[in-house]
């Protein structure tokens, strides 16, 4: 999917010297083919302990019911749906990278799509567990499915966004899984053909018999393109429908038409922040610096600043429309958000999501690994607060002042949230051990067109205009686009 000749002015997507096809295989498979190091074990132990906390607290919730949470008569949705929307949003970056950037032929996606897609799947698993546990009686979780219920021949109400959500999330999860696994087939075959013994058997089963013949690849490419085509509207529809869970209600602060685009932008924003959080660590620990370069980091930071600004515009629009609508309930809902008892949540959200990403306008900050990592975590925190602000501050004071209350999370609420993060990291760390974290075949595809060594060779051999070659070399130094110059 790459052109054979690429402008010399473009930044290289693979850096380092003497990169060959076999070196790519070796480099990417280091964590899969070797025993994990200490850092992995420490990370995995901590994550698994938190995942255990998740198992305990979710089981406790199932046992005693959602009374275990801090909910009350007025605030019936709080950390559960906050967590659900937060995780679904995080999942969106994976599909965006793998599908939308594929359609736009952005070759820099090739080295980050695999881990981002894995992240999508794990994030949606975390989100789905929230949905199931917030139902209160999870053993009846099949009720929103279109089955005739036993009290008569009444069907589910297809006018309800909650039913749409069941279809949207389950479609999203299964299609993402299929997309991810199809992409993995050639890479699993690579592991299979290098392995021996029991490992070979396991990877043989998992590889489905991939051989890499012409017809295999031709069909593979057709499938990838179509899946990208259907996933693109799918990912937009999923968060649109999630936002309709709120927008179709009559709750002040929720009942707004801006929700779908605002939620989708927020989802991409938080998703890229999470990709950044994970990949900055992964590239360092696993020595992927040649494949996930400063250019990749910078590109993701640019997407973060764009989507962060869209989210910022949405926040301001909400405030303006609340005032302009002349509806006093709506006006109060927003006044309460800004200056009510939850003012700190609102202003944390504003600071983390709107103000801090603006720092990425500075090239120095955009290309600093430490700054990118810290800001990506800040964005994740901000996006959690966004959902908390939308859900809890809208609910806790609505039409009846006599039922105005505050929401206080219980210990179980906190444990489920921390535990879901543990579950996510447990799954992600396991993924890094057993499957290639970078799409090997797709990186090989751009080796001959977009790697630094090829571009340097073109310059040495005088195949490019002299001034363009100089510009290329200068930009590498000047903007430090190539990380290895520094490392």
């Amino acid at each position: 999917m790459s052109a054979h000749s690429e402008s010399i002015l473009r930044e290289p997507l693979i850096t380092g010297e003497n990169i060959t096809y076999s070196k790519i295989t070796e480099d990417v498979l280091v964590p899969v083919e070797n025993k994990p190091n200490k850092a992995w074990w420490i990370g995995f132990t901590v994550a698994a302990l938190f995942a255990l906390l998740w198992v305990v607290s979710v089981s406790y919730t199932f046992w005693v019911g959602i009374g275990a949470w801090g909910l009350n008569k007025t605030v019936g949705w709080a950390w559960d749906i906050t967590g659900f929307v937060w995780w679904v949003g995080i999942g969106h970056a994976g599909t965006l990278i793998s599908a939308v950037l594929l359609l736009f032929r952005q070759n820099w996606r090739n080295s980050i799509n695999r881990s981002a897609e894995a992240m999508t799947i794990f994030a949606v698993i975390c989100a789905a567990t929230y949905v199931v546990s917030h139902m209160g009686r999870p053993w009846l979780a099949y009720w929103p499915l279109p089955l005739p219920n036993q009290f008569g021949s009444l069907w589910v109400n297809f006018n309800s966004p909650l039913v749409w959500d069941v279809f949207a999330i389950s479609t999203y999860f299964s299609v993402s899984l299929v997309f991810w696994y199809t992409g993995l087939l050639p890479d699993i075959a690579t592991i299979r053909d290098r392995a021996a013994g029991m490992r070979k058997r396991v990877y043989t089963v998992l590889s489905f018999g991939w051989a890499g013949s012409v017809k295999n690849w031709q069909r593979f490419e057709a499938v990838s393109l179509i899946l990208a085509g259907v996933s693109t509207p799918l990912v937009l529809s999923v968060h649109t429908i999630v936002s309709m869970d709120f927008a179709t209600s009559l709750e002040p602060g929720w009942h707004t038409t801006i929700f779908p685009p605002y939620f989708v932008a927020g989802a991409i924003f938080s998703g890229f922040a999470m990709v950044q959080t994970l990949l900055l660590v992964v590239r360092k620990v696993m020595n992927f610096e040649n494949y996930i370069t400063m250019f990749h980091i910078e590109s993701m930071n640019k997407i973060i600043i764009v989507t962060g600004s869209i989210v910022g515009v949405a926040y301001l629009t909400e405030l303006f429309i609340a005032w302009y609508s002349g509806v006093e309930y709506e006006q109060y809902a927003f006044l309460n958000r800004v200056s009510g008892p939850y003012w700190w949540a609102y202003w944390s959200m504003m600071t983390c999501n709107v103000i801090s990403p603006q720092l990425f306008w500075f090239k120095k900050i955009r290309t600093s690994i430490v700054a990118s990592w810290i800001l990506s975590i800040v964005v994740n925190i901000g996006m959690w607060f966004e959902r908390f602000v939308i859900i809890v501050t809208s609910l806790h004071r609505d039409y009846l002042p006599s039922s105005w209350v505050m929401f206080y999370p219980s210990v179980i609420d906190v444990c489920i949230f921390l535990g879901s993060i543990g579950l996510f990291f447990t799954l992600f760390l396991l993924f890094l051990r057993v499957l290639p974290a970078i799409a090997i075949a797709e990186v090989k595809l751009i080796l001959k067109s977009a790697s630094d060594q090829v571009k340097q060779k073109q310059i040495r051999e005088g195949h490019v205009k002299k001034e363009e070659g100089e510009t290329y070399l200068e930009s590498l130094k000047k903007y430090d686009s190539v990380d290895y110059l520094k490392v």
Partner: protein
Amino acid sequence: MSNTKYILGHFADPDDMMHGIEKLQANNISIYDAYTPMPIHGIEDKLGYKRSRLPIAAFCFGITGTLTGFSMIYYMLVYDWPMNIGGKPAFSMPDFVPICFELTVLFAAFGMMACFMYANHFFPGRAPRVMDLRATNDRFIIAIDARTNPYPDKIVDLLTEAGAVEILHNERKYVSYE
């Protein structure tokens, strides 16, 4: 030499392999298949493979999904048990759109994948039909059926000329996976 079933030309570079294919074709030597660690663009045209029909399958499955979604909701909400929801009409078309859309995507994706698996004979645990283990790593391999193409020495010469780094004479078709 007579036991040779397949001649494999190993190339280290995809462009060299394409060059090799051209050379062989110019000499009327038929190519059995090519095995590569990554997709090679233009190879299917060169070898005369037809376009994949998977997109057509995806479209048909997608349409099936749309119709399934629509008829399901219509049957349940309009025909079988119309509900009075705030006095609104039972046949509220805009509300049908999200689920029809999701089912379109679901059917298209899964139907196409099923066809993909079927056409490639992929299923979990299938013994891989691999001619050389390095084809999934760093070698671009042209396989030539030695039984149908005479003059093996000429084939070897042509492959070497095109820049093959290694030429194998395999007596078995596939690498054993037992």
